[in-house]
Structures are given as structure tokens and as C-alpha cells.
């Protein structure tokens, strides 16, 4: 026997799956060591989509970082937005008005449905059922069109805001959505006729990627991936945010913890989401959609700037007497339009100036003046205009403009401290951890992304199975690499 083994010395086949591969859902790279077609080892490599979102968040104010969250889990950007704004609201100590909370619950659940539809579509396609894919996309299209109706964007929505939502929803949106909730349960049945009791589907999913409840908790799984193992953990139930404590819904759980149970969980979850949306539409209270906290939220523009400038472009000018030559503006200017030596008054080269007001905000000695209608004028003329006091109306308008600019750019004055707030996004528990040092930008922003945690469990789920099962397992943990790599 030993001799036979010596003659037929076998080696493990090493296959590099991804980052360009039709089934790795983006840019996941798996290095598979296989004995024939059986998986001996799986090593996931991540980071191909790393954009430094956490670090970027530290250099942007709390308002400005919101669109970054769209780019994390681009499949359910609405849920990510909500996760972010809920966390920031808690840090600010403000609360969104009731109507905004209900609207956020509605759009959050819409995003859950659209995410689960995309998941089902790709999961089924990976296993070979191509028709489910197109059926799911039919309904997903409807949801995306509804998103477009309320905010103009289909994928990267940025609709929720700190303190509420960007704008109220139109009535036709509610009508169309209500019709959707009426039709959607029959559409789910349609998907299920194709795969739910299909022998091939059962053969491919039952008993694949089994993980026990205890192990699932230890691996840090959340969302449907955890609930498939029978752990009824759902942030919406355990730490309700928005309007989740005011609606009635169940948290579906599985028993075996295999791919089929996780599939069932998500299918049932879609029905629950549908139920939540219906209840929210029925209970939707009237009222404002933005919290009345002008120090912490972005109010409508006419509220923040009661008087606006007549349409004329401004210029910036350094008042020689006030300038101490500290060099702050010189370093801050993005266009490098400011010149001057240390301890001597600086000058602005007007041709290069972008009018961005960065220098205005930076200057500590009020040497920088804003000259409305000063664009294109010579330095002498500007000096003259800067010396003469402005008409009161324009002075006031300038003040509002600058305040508004400063508010956006620097952010609100935030209380010191740190906070971790988790929300239930379609993929699991999305947590935002902020450390605030009292400025308008977080000292540290950390995102607990469910996809990142779930990608780690891939080897545990797929070792011992066949190549085809790795595909099913990638599908069942429902990861998006944009969120995983951030």
C-alpha cells in the first residue's frame, strides 16, 4: 500500500477563485486548496475594494460623511444611511420627529426587501436557477423606482438626514408602495414555486454549510445568517430604533443552521418587512420630517439663510492692518492663491482664488473680508470696498452665508464622548462607533460591517464540501465587498 502511495503521489490542487469570478459577488478572492473537488482549505482575501471610508469619515463633518455610507453596502444603501444617522443622532442627543421615524422605517424595510431580492436572485443564479434572477429583478426595479420618486437616486440614495429625512414623501409614493405591499406576497410565492420545494434546490442547500447556534454566536454572525441557526437576535427587537417599537412583526428563525434554513429565514423576513411597511403606511403620522434642532441639523436653506445675496459673485480680500501674517490661510488655501512672508501681511492673487472661503474660516484675526460683487475687480478697488461698510442687508446676508458655510464645513459643536449604535441592516448588525472630541468631525469613526465578519466564517462553512458548495456558501452568507472592505 505504501508503495502504491509512493508511486501515485498526489498533490492538492490550488485554485485561485476571484477577484474576477462570476460567483464571488464583487471582488472577493478565495484561494482554494482542493483534494480532487473536495475543499481542504479556503483562504479568503479581502481588501480589493478598500477606499478608506473610516478614515475619510474623520476628515469630513458629520453631515458630509453621510454619502460615504451609501458606498459601503451599495445594495442596501438606504439601510446604511439610516444606521449612520441613527448613530449620529444619538451622539448629538437629538431625536427625529415621529413622521420622519416612520418614513425611515418604511424606506429601511424597502431596502431590506430589495437587498433580499438581489440576494435571492444571485444565490439562485449561482446554484443554476436563472429564471428566479429575472423575476426578483422585476420587483426590485419597482422598489428602485420608488426610491427614485422620493430622492431622485436609485442606488446611492442619501435620503435620511441627521435629525430626520431630506424631504417628505409624496402621496403617489405611498399609493404605489401600498399597491406593492398588496402584490408582493403573491410574487414571493412565485419565486417559491420555482425553488422552494424543488428537489435539486433542496439537494444543493439542505445540509450545506451547517453551523450550530453556539458556533454562529462565537463567530460573531448577525442578521439572517445567525438567525438561520436558531438564535432570535434582531436589533430591531432588542434595541428598537426609529418606529420599530410601534409596529408588530416577528423574527423568523431556522433550526438546522444550513443554507436552506438561512434561505427560508430571508424569504420569511421579506414577508415580515412587507407587513412592517403596510403598518407604517397605515399609521404614518402627520408633522414635520426634520428635527427642530438648528444647532445640530441641516435646516431648510431659507431657514438657515433668511436673506440671501443678490446674485453677484463675491471676492475675498485681506485687510492689511488686521493680518498678522500667521500663515494659516496660506497653508489652508486649496488653490494656493495666497502669498506672503511670515509675520507680514499676506495678499490674495484674485486670478487663482476659487472663492471657496476656506481662508475666511481659517483666519483667526478677522483679517479676511468678504466683498460681495467683488469678483474680477482690482486689488485697489477691493481695498476700497472692504474699507467702506456694507449696506446692512448685504452684510447680514454675508453673515448668514458664512455661517451656513462654516456649519457645513466644520460641522456642529458636538458633545465629547464616545458611542456605539447598532442597527439591523439586511445583512446583519451594522454598528457605528464614534469618538467625539467636541469638534464637528469625529475623532474616530469605526464601522462594524456584517459582511466583514461573515467573510471570515467562509472557511469554517465550506471546508469538507465540494467546489459547487463553496458557491452556495458564498451566496448564503450574503456579503457585499464594498461593505466588507469599506
Amino acid at each position, binding site marked *: 500500500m505504501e508503495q502504491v502511495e509512493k508511486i501515485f503521489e498526489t498533490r492538492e490542487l490550488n485554485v485561485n477563485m476571484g477577484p474576477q469570478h462570476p460567483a464571488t459577488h464583487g471582488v472577493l478572492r478565495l484561494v482554494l486548496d482542493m483534494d480532487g473537488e473536495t475543499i481542504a482549505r479556503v483562504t479568503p482575501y479581502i481588501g480589493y475594494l478598500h477606499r478608506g471610508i473610516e478614515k475619510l469619515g474623520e476628515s469630513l463633518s458629520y453631515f458630509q460623511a453621510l454619502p460615504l455610507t451609501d458606498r459601503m453596502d451599495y445594495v442596501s444603501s438606504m439601510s446604511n444611511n439610516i444606521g449612520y444617522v441613527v448613530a449620529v443622532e444619538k451622539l448629538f442627543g437629538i431625536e427625529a420627529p415621529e413622521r420622519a421615524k416612520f418614513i425611515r422605517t418604511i424606506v429601511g424595510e424597502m431596502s431590506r426587501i430589495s437587498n433580499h431580492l438581489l440576494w435571492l436572485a444571485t444565490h439562485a443564479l449561482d446554484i*443554476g436557477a436563472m429564471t428566479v434572477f429575472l*423575476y426578483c429583478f422585476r420587483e426590485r426595479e419597482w422598489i428602485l423606482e420608488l426610491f427614485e420618486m422620493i430622492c431622485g437616486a436609485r442606488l446611492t440614495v442619501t435620503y435620511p438626514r441627521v435629525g430626520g429625512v431630506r424631504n417628505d414623501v409624496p402621496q403617489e409614493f405611498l399609493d404605489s408602495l401600498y399597491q406593492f405591499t398588496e402584490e408582493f406576497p403573491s410574487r414571493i410565492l412565485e419565486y417559491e414555486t420555482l425553488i422552494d420545494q424543488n428537489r435539486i434546490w433542496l439537494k444543493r442547500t439542505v445540509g450545506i454549510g451547517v453551523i450550530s447556534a453556539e458556533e454562529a454566536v462565537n463567530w460573531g454572525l448577525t442578521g439572517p445568517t445567525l438567525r438561520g441557526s436558531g438564535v432570535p437576535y434582531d436589533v430591531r427587537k432588542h434595541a428598537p430604533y426609529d418606529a420599530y417599537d410601534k409596529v408588530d412583526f416577528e423574527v423568523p428563525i431556522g433550526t438546522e443552521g444550513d443554507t436552506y434554513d438561512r434561505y427560508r429565514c430571508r424569504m420569511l423576513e421579506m414577508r415580515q418587512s412587507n407587513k412592517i411597511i403596510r403598518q407604517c403606511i397605515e399609521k404614518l403620522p402627520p408633522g414635520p420630517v426634520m428635527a427642530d434642532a438648528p444647532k445640530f441639523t441641516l435646516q431648510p436653506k431659507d431657514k438657515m439663510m433668511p436673506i440671501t445675496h443678490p446674485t453677484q459673485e463675491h471676492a475675498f480680500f485681506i485687510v492689511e492692518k488686521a493680518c498678522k501674517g500667521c500663515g494659516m490661510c496660506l497653508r489652508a488655501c486649496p488653490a494656493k492663491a495666497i502669498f506672503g512672508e511670515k509675520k507680514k501681511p499676506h495678499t490674495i492673487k484674485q486670478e487663482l482664488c476659487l472663492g471657496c472661503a476656506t481662508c475666511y474660516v481659517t483666519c483667526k484675526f478677522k483679517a479676511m473680508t468678504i466683498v460681495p460683487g467683488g469678483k474680477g475687480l482690482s486689488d485697489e478697488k477691493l481695498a476700497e470696498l472692504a474699507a467702506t461698510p456694507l449696506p446692512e442687508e448685504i452684510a447680514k446676508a454675508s453673515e448668514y452665508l458664512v455661517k451656513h458655510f462654516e456649519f457645513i464645513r466644520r460641522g456642529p459643536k458636538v458633545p465629547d464622548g464616545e458611542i456605539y449604535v447598532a442597527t439591523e441592516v439586511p445583512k446583519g448588525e451594522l454598528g457605528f462607533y464614534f469618538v467625539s472630541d467636541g469638534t464637528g468631525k469625529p475623532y474616530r469613526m469605526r464601522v462594524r460591517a456584517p459582511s466583514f465578519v461573515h467573510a471570515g466564517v467562509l472557511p469554517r462553512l465550506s471546508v469538507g464540501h465540494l*467546489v*459547487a458548495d463553496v458557491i452556495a456558501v458564498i451566496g448564503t452568507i450574503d456579503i457585499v465587498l464594498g461593505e466588507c472592505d469599506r
Partner: protein
Amino acid sequence: MDIFANIITPQTLDALIKFGINVAIIIIKIAVVLGIGLLHVAYATYFERKVIGHMQVRLGPMRVGPHGLLQPIADGIKLFFKEDIIPAEADKPVFYLAPVIFMAASMINLAVIPFSSNFVIANINVGLLFIFAIAGLGVYGIFISGWASNSKYAFLGGLRSSAQVISYEIAIGLSLVGVMIKAGSLNLTDIVNAQEASRYGMYAIPQIVAFVVFTIAAVAETNRTPFDLPEAESELVAGYFVEYSGFRFALFFLGEYIAMFIMASLAAVCFLGGWTLPWYVTKALPFLTYVPGIVWFLLKVYAFIFFYYWIRATVPRYRYDQLMAIGWKILIPIALANILVTGLVKILV
């Protein structure tokens, strides 16, 4: 001179002319069949895309020509002008050879398919065995392409495919033994004639078990969903022809669709009565006898091909080990049992 005079007698001359005419007829027949075959492939893809498109609530090709009718031609031209990429590490002569073997192996089978009572290129007595033999050769094309590409995905696809095709060929062969017993011949034309004379008019009724086994195995033999593991796009990207592009890829494509056509015609000839209609149908609707036989044949073939497409739009894909288990543990025993029963019936009744 005498010798020639002795050889070229009027009889031999007659024979020579006859031979020449026969050759000419065969060449014409080949041209016709080849033309039909290639046209079939072009429009089978169109048919497939339209059928699956409508099943999936979309339209399928619509842009090139009215209702996308010129789409297959545009596709063909595109493939023809595409760059022919050959991997640097590939075993080049073998790499060149593989698609040719694959396509030739499926094309040759067209020679023995009887399209109508008097239209068959080679009416040979071992027709059925000939088809198995040649289909067996097609595996070499698959395996060689997987091997010569020097890519792990292609290699796995090639291995899977060879294992699959070989094991399902057994099931197909065994399922057709029942037909051979009943018809008492391997000649495809004789099988059709025997069916016409039989009580039910087609063997699909008495040989229903064999027909089901044949249908399942035929899907697997041609690497179609749910047995399309060799080219499972979500696992192996494209399987054994992943490294092929341009016209070489088109050859694989051609071969695959012709193999599908062969399997469908085999089903039509061996189980559905070929170009004939069962006697009870013609008795009920006598005017149907005026319709040429080839129409019925093609109708049966395309109904079978439609069935292929229907499956493809409906079911997921099996896993490799499950597929082998179905072949060896279910289909082959059932086919063997069917042979036993058919044999006993033949002896006893």
C-alpha cells in the same frame, strides 16, 4: 488494349455511371444536411433566447432585424472576426485540434439520421451503434481542450465533462436496448418502420421507462441544465472552453448545438416514430397523410429541443457528485430493469 476492352464492358460502364450518380447524390445530400445543420444551430440559439426570454418576462433579441431575426447572423459574423486568443502556456497543436474533434464528432452523426423515409445520407445497418461510437469520440474533444488550455478551471471542466459524458452514455445505450429488442434492428430507418407497424405507433408508449431515462440522460450527455456542470459558469466560469475565443469558441458552440439536435432526432426516431404518425392519428384525421414526413420529424425534434430550453429556464443545477449518483445509482439500474422486462415480454408474448 484488349485488357481494357475486356474491363470496360457496357455492364461495367453502367456500374461506373451509377456509382458516379450515387456519389453526386450523396454529395448533394451532405450539402443539404450540412446547410440545414448550420442553419439549425444559428436559429436554435435564436429560438432558445426567445423561448427563455419570454419565460423570464423579457423579450429576448429584438434589435437586429425584425424581432431580432438577424441576431444569429450578426453573432456569427462577430465571432468570426474576433481575435483568436491562444494562451501562452497552452499545448498549441492539441489546443488547435480539440474544437475540430468536438465539432466533427457531432457533425458526423448527421450522416445516419433519417430525416424522412427516403432521405438519409448513409442508411447503414449499425446506425445506432455508429452514433454511440462517434459520440464517444466527442469526449476526446472536451477532454483534450480542458487539458491543452493549461488552465485549472478548464482542466476541472474537462474532467467533469468526460466523466459525465462517459457515464451517461451507458445510460443512453441501455435505455435504447429496449428499442433495439422491440424493433429487432439497429438500422434507424428500420426502427422507424417497425414503430409504424407496431400496435401503439411509437415506442414512447410501451417503452415509457426507457424514454424517461433517455430524456434525462440526453440532457446530461449534451451538458445542458440541470447537468451543465462542465460549464457551470458560477463555479468554473465556462468550463473546458474557458480559454477559447473567437471562431474556436464558435466551433464548440456549433458542436454542442448539433449534439443537441442529434439527441433530439434520436429521441424522435427511436421513441416518437420519426417521420411517421401513429396509425390511429391518421385514421382519425386522414388529411394529415398529405403532410410530408420531414415536417413531422422536424416537429418532433423541435418539440424535444423546446423541452431542453424549458428545463433550462426552470431548474437549478445539480452538484457533480449528485449527478454521478443519479447516473449510476438510478438511471442505469432502471434501464437494466427495463431491458429485462422488455426481453421477457418479447419471449413470452
